[in-house]
């Protein structure tokens, strides 16, 4: 999916509008936005079981019995009813559900597949792996994106810029999971140099974990690099047309010093973009994890869907939303700390 903030930056005037829009009122707006998003996701999680054809309590119990024959049915029905508060009126059911989810630890019920492990436990375990993958790949991808973007902007319309742009559009539209399959064939099967699946060998060692990370990380870097590079290119073009750059040029600055000044001014907006783009990237990262059977959220969700393990699917959506919201908040809070020109006054 195309990153909308990238198009906002391409529209120009981004730097100027950014300095203006950071006010206390803006921050309040953003925080209200986060709570509304959380509300939408909680409401969706609450409504979805009710939309299933038939009585979802029965579906849930049947599913659980298929996975684990001989479970105590009456106790299960009672537990699902208490989770959803099924004997209450609808609005009270929702409040009851929200209360269950917002308590510590959030109560999504027990996984059907790994009964009686709680869905929340499975999801938090998988999240750790996803965050490792996400963090590593995005740091590398972002740093490479900055250098590529600045290079392209400084040599705008020169050969490199004109060749790289269409190539980056192409990489931007490659299905990540498909690239993963190609990588497995090339690097794991034909060359046999890297493991095709999992996150560690029989026992997790540091070396094994890193070896298993290389392929998925590489795929994620390749598909997310274009978005970072193109954003940086847009911002840098704007920086290059600003007054201080003209002054620097008039002073006779060139080479490393000049490069440094431009870099410092281009990094900040792209850092915000990095955090804001997590919501778009994370879905693609899930598919890559599934390709490599990496024990992160993507594989967990796909396995849960295959086995109709509904509590895990719901818990996974909730956790994903939390990650996206936190990274959005980080983008808003980091900016005034890093850029002294901006403050929430």
């Amino acid at each position, binding site marked *: *999916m195309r990153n909308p903030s990238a198009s906002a930056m391409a529209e120009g005037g981004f730097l100027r509008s950014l300095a203006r829009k950071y006010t206390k009122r803006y921050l309040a707006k953003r925080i209200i*936005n986060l709570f509304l998003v959380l509300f939408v996701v909680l409401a969706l999680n609450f409504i979805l079981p009710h939309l*299933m054809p038939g009585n979802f309590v029965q579906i849930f119990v049947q599913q659980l019995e298929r996975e684990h024959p001989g479970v105590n049915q009456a106790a299960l029905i009672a537990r699902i009813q208490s989770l959803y508060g099924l004997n209450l009126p609808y609005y009270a059911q929702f409040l009851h559900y929200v209360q269950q989810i917002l308590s510590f630890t959030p109560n999504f019920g027990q996984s059907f597949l790994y009964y009686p492990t709680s869905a929340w436990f499975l999801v938090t375990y998988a999240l750790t792996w996803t965050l490792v993958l996400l963090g590593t790949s995005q740091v590398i991808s972002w740093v490479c994106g900055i250098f590529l973007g600045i290079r392209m902007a400084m040599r705008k319309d020169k050969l490199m810029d004109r060749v790289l742009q269409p190539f980056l559009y192409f990489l931007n539209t490659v*299905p990540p999971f498909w690239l993963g399959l*190609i990588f497995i064939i090339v690097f794991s099967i034909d060359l046999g140099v890297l493991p095709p699946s999992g996150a560690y060998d029989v026992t997790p060692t540091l070396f094994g974990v890193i070896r298993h990370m290389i392929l998925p990380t590489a795929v994620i870097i390749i598909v997310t690099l274009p978005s970072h590079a193109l954003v940086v290119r847009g911002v840098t073009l704007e920086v290059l047309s600003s007054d201080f750059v003209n002054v620097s040029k008039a002073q006779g600055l060139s080479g490393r010093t000049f490069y440094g000044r431009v870099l410092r001014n281009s990094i900040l907006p792209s850092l915000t973009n990095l955090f804001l783009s997590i919501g778009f990237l994370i879905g693609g990262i899930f598919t890559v994890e599934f390709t490599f059977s990496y024990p992160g959220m993507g594989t967990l969700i796909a396995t849960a*869907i295959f086995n109709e393990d509904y509590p895990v699917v719901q818990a996974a959506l909730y956790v994903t939303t939390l990650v996206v919201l936190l990274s959005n908040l980080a983008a808003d809070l980091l900016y005034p700390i890093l850029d002294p020109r901006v403050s929430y006054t």
Partner: protein
Amino acid sequence: MAGTAISIFFVVVAFVGLIYLPHDPLQPVGPDYSPPSVQFPFGTTFVGQDVFSQWIFGARSTLLVGFLSALIAMGIGVVIGVTAGYISLTDEPLMRFTDVILTLPALPMLITIAAFVRPTIVLTAALIAFLSWPATARVTRSDVLSLKESPYIEVARLSGVPKRYIMFRDMLRHIMPLVMALSLFSVIGAILTEASLDFIGVGPSSAFTWGAMISFANDANAVFAGAWWWFLIPGLSIAILSTGLAFIAYGVETVLKEA
């Protein structure tokens, strides 16, 4: 130019599939896992289905999801964008609503919804559209805001042209070219999203898209059988088609900006 040629090529492929398919795409017609040959240009699957026929057949649903979803998203986005831009009272609530939809993690949400309700292909397109219209709404709103001050709209307003005519006739005529070009990005997004849903295992079950081909290949462990021909072409087709559409969109955008 290149973008238009690429896009037309895939549309032609989809239409050819309506009239002629070399083999029945879903029936076994050859040996299992046969590599590309004269008889089966893209090889065969693990039960001997012809990948070339599947590729032609899949173009139809793939394009349908992409364009249908983009059309719905454009409709929602334009209505919300024009309303927010022209009627200042609605601006704040509508844009806050847009922000909320924009922040939602689209793919994880679609996966969850699809896991519970197993949508058809049309519903899938609609669901993708419901989560992807904010970009259109934002562009439309900012265009309307600047258009609102232009003399000809002022004349229309003073001469008593009804509000809805100004909003959805006079203004629309001006903003549609840009909005339609940007909607090509929604087509790309929808095709990729649908393919991802297929891959995770919650795609529309009755439709056969390129994403479904990749997903079937993965489920059948084609990777470990070394059957690269099964999924190479569908994935590459998605990327090439999307790049073609992106070229058109960027081209139109640049021309409109200069004008």
